[in-house]
């Protein structure tokens, strides 16, 4: 298990470190400021905070000393004249995902935004440029729309560690796109998905993958918690298969994480349907599959089983070795040492939790 947890929350960024067999707060930064994504770059230990000020807009902060000091760098900005739709100026409304470019591109970083622009930095984050090839994709203006947020947003950036020009991204709502040439060309990878909210549920575009993740030890296996179920691919996204439980609970939700050492083992955080969006029957459950989604186990030991309204946002369920951690919309933070069989509380008094990452 990695020994640091970074949290992006509604009221700041919080870092925990694992000491004396428990999680202890190491750093709190940006009191009161929403942090949509807290990100540690594993290549160099740099911490990033994607901020969403209520008044002053999005800001990007960088720390090279584990949060002791921060430098503000220029957040991704759309070139003048770019439009979300005809007549609507494109401006960075939210930073919703962040990923490093891989060990062969040591200065490269990616950031996904609402309203749908992907940005790349080639200078360690000092400046970001809009990836025009995706922004100009012929499906965008007519086929992308809001989901989770009012306008389309990129919440998932999955860089293949075997070939760092091979990247999948997830967009709500549009679906999954793949590039094999570092972002010059993009192909839709939505075959097998089902969008029950569309007139044609099997349309090429308009899907709502809430989050897309790859199995660390076999990146051809990708999982997504979709608005319409849990889907898995074993061929790099060419075809997706619905692995949800038809009657739940493993069906609707926002988050999914895959075991480091097993592409068939994954966890989801079920929620009660898209019209309710609370813990199912007011009791909190994490579901785990050990067989690629054929069967799911309900993991409840140590989680509140009555009067509970918590759900888990898309970036707030993570695993590392035998450890699993998740944070909820009502500020509860839970930790399992045994892959979810038993849970303990790290804190019950946090702000709404947007993102969690295990880091060194």
């Amino acid at each position, binding site marked *: 298990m990695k020994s640091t947890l970074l949290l992006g929350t509604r009221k700041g960024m919080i870092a925990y470190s694992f000491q004396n067999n428990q999680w202890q707060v190491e750093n709190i930064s940006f009191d009161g400021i929403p942090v949509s994504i807290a990100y540690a770059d594993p290549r160099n230990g740099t911490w990033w905070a994607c901020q969403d000020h209520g008044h*002053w807009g999005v800001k990007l902060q960088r720390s090279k000393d584990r949060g002791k000091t921060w430098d503000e760098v220029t957040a991704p900005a759309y070139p003048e004249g770019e439009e979300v739709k005809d007549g609507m100026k494109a401006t960075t409304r939210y930073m919703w995902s962040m990923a490093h470019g891989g060990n062969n591109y040591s200065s490269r970083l990616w950031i996904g935004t609402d309203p749908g622009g992907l940005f790349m930095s080639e200078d360690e984050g000092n400046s970001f440029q809009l990836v025009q090839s995706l922004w100009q994709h012929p499906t965008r203006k007519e086929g992308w729309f809001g989901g989770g947020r009012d306008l389309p947003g990129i919440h998932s950036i999955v860089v293949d560690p075997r070939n760092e020009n091979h990247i999948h991204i997830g967009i709500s709502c549009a679906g999954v796109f793949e590039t094999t040439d570092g972002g010059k060309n993009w192909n839709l990878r939505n075959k097998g998905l089902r969008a029950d909210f569309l007139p044609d549920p099997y349309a090429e575009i308009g899907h709502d993958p809430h989050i897309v993740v790859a199995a660390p030890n076999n990146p051809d296996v990708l999982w997504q918690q979709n608005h319409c179920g849990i889907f898995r691919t074993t061929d790099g996204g060419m075809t997706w298969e619905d692995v949800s439980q038809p009657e739940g609970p493993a069906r609707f939700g926002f988050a999914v994480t895959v075991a480091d050492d097993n592409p068939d083992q994954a966890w989801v955080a079920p929620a009660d349907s898209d019209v309710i969006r609370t813990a199912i029957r007011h009791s909190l459950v994490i579901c785990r599959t050990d067989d690629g989604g054929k069967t799911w186990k309900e993991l409840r030991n140590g989680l509140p089983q009555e009067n509970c309204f918590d759900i888990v946002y898309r970036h707030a369920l993570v695993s590392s070795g035998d450890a699993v951690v998740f944070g909820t919309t009502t500020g509860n933070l839970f930790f399992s040492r045994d892959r979810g069989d038993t849970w303990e509380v790290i804190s019950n008094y946090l702000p709404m939790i947007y993102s969690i990452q295990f880091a060194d």
Partner: protein
Amino acid sequence: MPVVKFTYALKRFFPKLKDTSVSGKTLSAVLAEMEASYPGVLRYILDDQRCLRQHVNIFIDGTMIKDRANLSDPFEENSEIYIMQALSGG
């Protein structure tokens, strides 16, 4: 000369902000002067398309500006220009 005054909320991020006399003849020119005096402050007030942010207000002599996109509202030689945070957006 017109004077620009700032909400205290911005002073968290720009501690040196103070009432500042300006020579600009348009609001855009005035904000450019503010950026020169307090580097970075413009991006807190305007978005990346140089429109006034949704939850920021500018008042000229007590009246909220109307043109949030092009910042064309006029002011006088002795006007007070207040940059305020809206009560929404928190």
